[in-house]
């Protein structure tokens, strides 16, 4: 951005290109540029970055608190969903590691019973992180796995139960119905569960992330989002559009393939990388 040329007018085309190439999408970009342009003369090349940061920050809102342990001793249940290959399983491993480091007890439910070696993949992580895992045989019922895991988590006073699910395209209604069934099943032993219902989004995905979030939101009433692969070239700007339209806040970011490549979402750092 032509940002540090003192006294120069704002290069609005440059700003537009920056936001579009950050995957905020043309619609949201136009909206943001219009808002900033409406602040007549108040913004210069020197202050455009700050002004744009503030605008995006107001869309992203306050970062929600980290997932909380329940006061009644029942497990906090976190259901993780998203389209194929975005990083659900790996993010669950990272989250389990983070929560465990904070002194919590964590359990995993390997409810992706569909994809080849999905159960094995999460099992490797569970063994590495020394976290208990509940699973069934390949092609078993994902709802049943979650039910059994929930039962075990309750019995064993586990603080956090994290449920992995199979990747699924939001356009496949039968798969979205399966996801709703998983959610209903989790509610059977605790009608407030699942307490956290998150979508995982890939930072290199473009506008389709909004479609994904819309449909997963209809199915689960999402209250969180994880954006992965921010160690790559993807800026993850699609999550701004998701927050803007659906008010689903980003909770965590993935920055690599290891269990420590994970941190709470920080809007300042996120926006700085886009601008």
């Amino acid at each position, binding site marked *: 951005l032509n940002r540090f040329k003192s006294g120069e007018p704002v290069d609005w085309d440059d700003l537009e*290109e920056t936001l*579009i*190439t*950050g*995957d905020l*999408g*043309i*619609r949201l970009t136009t909206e943001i540029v219009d808002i900033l342009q409406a602040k007549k003369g108040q913004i210069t090349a020197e202050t455009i970055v700050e002004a744009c940061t503030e605008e995006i920050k107001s869309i992203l809102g306050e970062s929600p608190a980290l997932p909380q342990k329940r006061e009644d001793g029942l497990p906090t249940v976190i259901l993780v969903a998203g*389209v*194929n*290959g*975005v*990083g659900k399983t790996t993010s669950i491993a990272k989250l389990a590691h983070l929560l465990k480091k904070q002194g919590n007890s964590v359990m995993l439910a390997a409810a992706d019973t*569909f*994809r*080849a*070696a999905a159960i*094995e*993949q999460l*099992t*490797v*992580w569970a063994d*590495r992180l020394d976290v208990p895992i509940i699973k069934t045989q390949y092609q078993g019922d994902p709802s049943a796995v979650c039910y059994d895991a929930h039962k075990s988590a309750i019995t064993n006073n586990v603080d956090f139960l994290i449920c992995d699910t199979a990747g699924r*395209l*939001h*356009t496949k209604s039968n798969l979205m119905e399966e996801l709703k069934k998983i959610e209903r099943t989790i509610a059977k032993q605790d009608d407030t569960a699942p307490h956290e219902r998150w979508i995982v989004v*890939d930072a*290199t*995905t*473009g*506008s*389709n*992330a909004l*479609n994904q979030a819309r449909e997963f939101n209809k199915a689960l009433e999402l209250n969180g989002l994880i954006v992965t*692969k921010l*160690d*790559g*070239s*993807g*800026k993850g700007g*699609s999550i701004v559009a998701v927050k803007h339209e659906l008010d689903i806040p980003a909770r965590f970011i993935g920055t690599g*393939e290891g269990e420590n490549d994970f941190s709470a979402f920080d809007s300042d750092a996120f926006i700085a990388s886009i601008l």
Partner: protein
Amino acid sequence: SLSDNLQNTFKKIRGHGKLTEKNITDAMREVRMALLEADVEFSVAKTFIANVKERALGETVLKSVSPGQQIVKIFQDEMAALLGVDAEGLDLNPPARILMVGLNGAGKTTTSAKLALHLRKEGRRPLLVACDLMRPAAIDQLATLGKQIDVPVYTPDPNEKDVLKVAKDALKWIENQNGTVTIFDTAGRQEIDNELVAELKKLRDFLDPKETLLVADSATGQQAVSVAQHFEEAIGITGIVLTKLDGDARGGAALSMRSVTQKPIKFAGVGEKMSELEAFDPERVAGRILG
């Protein structure tokens, strides 16, 4: 849709004479919106529009068609032509080796198995080699898929860390198989991860594959150019496979990757099943991008 928007823009104009410069300029704004909404990369969209604008200026408005419809048709034709050029098959001259590369989660492992099944249905004898030593249970994943499609899979020791050693051992294993084409699955990596790209370059140089296919998610956004360019420059790709086209991604990444590498998009992944691999259909994707 773009067609509707353009029809509105040109409601009053009917067929006679040339498309005017104003017709074209008005239409360009709508088309640019459509391309960017379809996730075509920013500079690729700019270049594409400029090129098509040239052609559109020479056209006559046909009596039976509105200028808006005509402009859409010009764009669709140009795009299908750009996407579909030289979409030939695979170079399978012996030793026929296909190297599958791409970002994390793009669909390499699944596509490797689908491609093996496709080749077997063509009467060839495919083999699969698991070269992903990074991802937990990646070797299991390829082995499981191989069993499902009845294709032999070379599975290294999961504790092995040296991918070149695995490749060497795989070549020895291949000598004792009765295969006619071998597909090498590799670990996902980010195109800007220099270390992992360098590792891939060493592997590519060692295997000297006839085909190096970039497997890419059709929902890839603005980084499509960076992804395609980096892989092309580092290891040279011979083709692209776009995956997850069974979703509703507009697919602008197809135009971006194709424009920047000039390499053909050879296949489309259209589902999770082993049978769900198709020849890439440029007309259908062009229609999808323009909406």
